[in-house]
C-alpha cells in the first residue's frame, strides 16, 4: 500500500463522484461513472484485492457502462432536474 498514491486516487474518486452527480448530460455522467469505476479498480488492485479489481473493471467499468448507454439511447439525453 502506497499512501500518497491512495490519497490521490481517493481525491479523484470524490471529484468524479461529485461531477457525475452535477452533469446534466446523462451520457457524460455515464462516462464519468466509468472513470470512477476504473479509479476504484485501480485502488483495489493497488491494495492487493486483484480479484475484486478484475470484477470491477469487467462489470463496473465495462458492461454496466454499456447497459446505461443502451438505456440512455431510448430515453432523453439530458436530465430534467
Amino acid at each position, binding site marked *: 500500500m502506497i499512501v500518497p498514491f491512495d490519497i490521490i486516487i481517493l481525491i479523484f474518486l470524490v471529484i468524479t463522484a461529485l461531477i457525475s452527480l452535477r452533469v446534466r448530460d446523462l451520457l457524460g455522467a455515464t462516462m464519468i461513472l466509468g472513470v470512477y469505476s476504473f479509479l476504484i479498480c485501480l485502488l483495489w488492485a493497488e491494495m492487493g484485492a486483484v480479484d475484486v479489481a478484475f470484477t470491477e473493471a*469487467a462489470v463496473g467499468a*465495462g458492461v454496466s457502462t454499456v447497459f446505461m448507454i443502451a438505456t440512455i439511447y431510448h430515453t432523453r439525453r439530458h436530465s430534467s432536474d
Partner: protein
Amino acid sequence: MKWFGLIATVFTGILLLSAVPDFAAFGDPDSPANGGLGDHPSVSQYYITDTYTDTKVPNIVTAVLADYRGYDTMFETVVIFAAGIAIFAILRSFSGPVAPSHPTAIDTSVEGDHQRIIIGTTCRVIIPVIQLFALYVVAHGHHSPGGGFQGGVILGASFILVALAKDLSAALGRFSEKRYLALGSVGILIYAGFGLLCVALERNFLDYEILHRIMPATDPIMARSHSMLGVEVGVAFTVTAIMFAIYANLSSKGRLEQGF
C-alpha cells in the same frame, strides 16, 4: 427538503467517519479478524495456512468463493439469473413490429463504407481473442485472478461487441434468445447438480470431497479442485447468457429486432 437532505447526509457522514478509528489498521496481524481472539485462530488464518493442503488451489479467493463459501456463490449466481429474468419479464414484448422511434442511420456513402470495413475488420480480429481470454480467465481461476463471474462477463461482452459493431440481429444469429435462456438455466443446473451429486453420495450439499468416487483418477483433494472448476464453468454460463440477455432487451426495448 433540500436542507433536510443535506443535514441527513452530513449527519450520516459524520456517524460513519466516527466509526473509522475503530477499524483495525490495514493488514494489522494482531487484529481479531486476522489474528483471532486469544488462542483461537481466526477463519482467515485458517484459509491462509490450510487452503493449499485442503484443496491444492493456490488462489485462496477462488477456493473460498467456490468451495468454503459455495452456498454464497451459488445463490449469487441465482440472483444474477433472477435479475436477468426480471429484466426479460419487464421489457420483452412480443407484439408485432413497430416503426422505430429512431430512424436507423445506415450510412451508404463511401465514407460510411470505409467506417464499416474498419469497425467490422477490427471486431473480426479482436472478438476471438476476447473470447479466448474469457475462457482462459474461467479455466485459470484457480491459479490467477479471475473465475466464473469475470470470465462470464468478458464472454458476454464479446457478444455485446458483435451487436455494437454490426447490429443486434447479427449477435442474435450467433446467440439466439432460446439459447441464452437455456444457457442461463443450464449454468445454475450445473452448479446445483454438483451439490446434489454430493448429496446423492451421502455427504452434505456442495461437499466436493466425496466426488472422487465418480471422478476417475482423483483423490479427495483433487476432487475439490476439479469440482471448483466445474462450478465456475456453471457460473460462467449463467453470467454470459444473462449479460447478453440484459443488453439485447435493453437496447431494443424488448423487441429484439434492432438495437444499435
